[in-house]
């Protein structure tokens, strides 16, 4: 029986590139694709894939929140997270959410097939650069007698994480309510609770929090990015 894979990324070029990579492997099929985390969760419920490959930085519902929802619905599904960033926090959150694989987008052409093969055999896979970081973090904790805990973020519920992403993307409480099938009043209550828990008082601070904590990702211009300044 073929291994059924669902791909989720907000860029069609990336979805097509990933599909081309995966379809070169005999015995695998791409059973569907999705352009954001919410669509990925819906499609996974319909299509019941064996493996889901999720970009972290997607609109509406990011890959980490989608991983949590996927695992809640089907703990046997194997999630591989794709990301442009290898920050400690994203790695930690991906693991906490139940991801079995972690691949940097820049390394995907080299590592994705190996990652899918690994999770197919019930193993975990990390891009080598990430693997070193995970191991270093593990050794740090051992050397410190297991006392070096990562800084604790205020505990947000899964629903609050969905709401904070949508608010940080610029959606109003009414739009949040509509997207999540809530009343506007409930969406506003979530918003108030989030702000109270985080100790913030404005949407601007909420956006800053969301960016700093990888709830939404923004493109950081590189030195050779022509958008950074006058035409290079």
């Amino acid at each position, binding site marked *: 029986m073929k291994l059924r894979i669902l791909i989720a990324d907000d*860029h*069609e*070029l*990336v979805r*097509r590139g990933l599909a*081309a990579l995966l379809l070169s492997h005999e015995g695998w099929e791409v059973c569907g694709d999705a352009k954001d985390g919410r669509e990925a969760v819906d499609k996974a419920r319909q299509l019941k894939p064996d493996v889901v490959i999720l970009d972290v930085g997607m609109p509406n519902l990011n890959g980490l929140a989608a991983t949590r929802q996927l695992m809640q619905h089907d703990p046997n599904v194997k999630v591989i997270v794709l990301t442009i960033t290898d920050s400690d926090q994203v790695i930690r959150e991906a693991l906490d959410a139940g991801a079995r694989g972690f691949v940097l987008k820049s390394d995907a*052409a080299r590592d994705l097939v190996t990652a899918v093969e690994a999770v197919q055999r019930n193993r975990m896979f990390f891009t080598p650069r990430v693997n070193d970081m995970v191991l270093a973090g593990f050794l740090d904790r051992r050397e410190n007698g297991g006392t070096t805990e990562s800084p604790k973020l205020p505990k947000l519920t899964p629903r609050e994480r969905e709401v904070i992403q949508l608010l940080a993307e610029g959606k109003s409480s009414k739009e949040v309510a509509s997207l999540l099938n809530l009343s506007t009043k409930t969406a506003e209550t979530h918003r108030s609770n989030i702000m109270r828990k985080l100790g913030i008082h404005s949407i601007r601070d909420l956006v800053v929090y969301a960016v700093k904590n990888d709830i939404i990702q923004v493109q950081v211009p590189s030195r*050779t990015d022509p958008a950074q300044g006058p035409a290079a």
Partner: protein
Amino acid sequence: MNSSRLGDVRDNKKSMPVRILVVDDHPVVRHGIRTLLGRHADWEVVDEAEDGVEAVEKADRLRPDVVVLDLSMPRMNGLEACRLIRKNVPESEILIVTQHNSPQMMREAFKANAKGYVVKSDAGRDLVDAVDAVSQHKFFGHA
């Protein structure tokens, strides 16, 4: 989004072979571009490059009809590469394929002598038409 189409080639398909160089720093995106271009039987992706420096060098050597060129890349960005390729290989037309959905950036690209501009999120819809247009030395722009 303001949209302006500078060239429309849907009714004017060309059947001559088109030799294409694909330039992007992400291999997965290059795969995606190849897959989309593979729809057209007469087109050949002659090579790939992962930054502007490599693009200029390969364009010099391969003299492709079309260079599909990303803007944000290490070592040398797409605008700089565009200027150099147009100077060194005037017969190669440049199609910028970028995440920057910005009329200002599109103007910069045309000032650098690009022939076409496609935003990555619209590539599924526009890439084939855009390559078709620029391969016939027609402008194509959406931003």
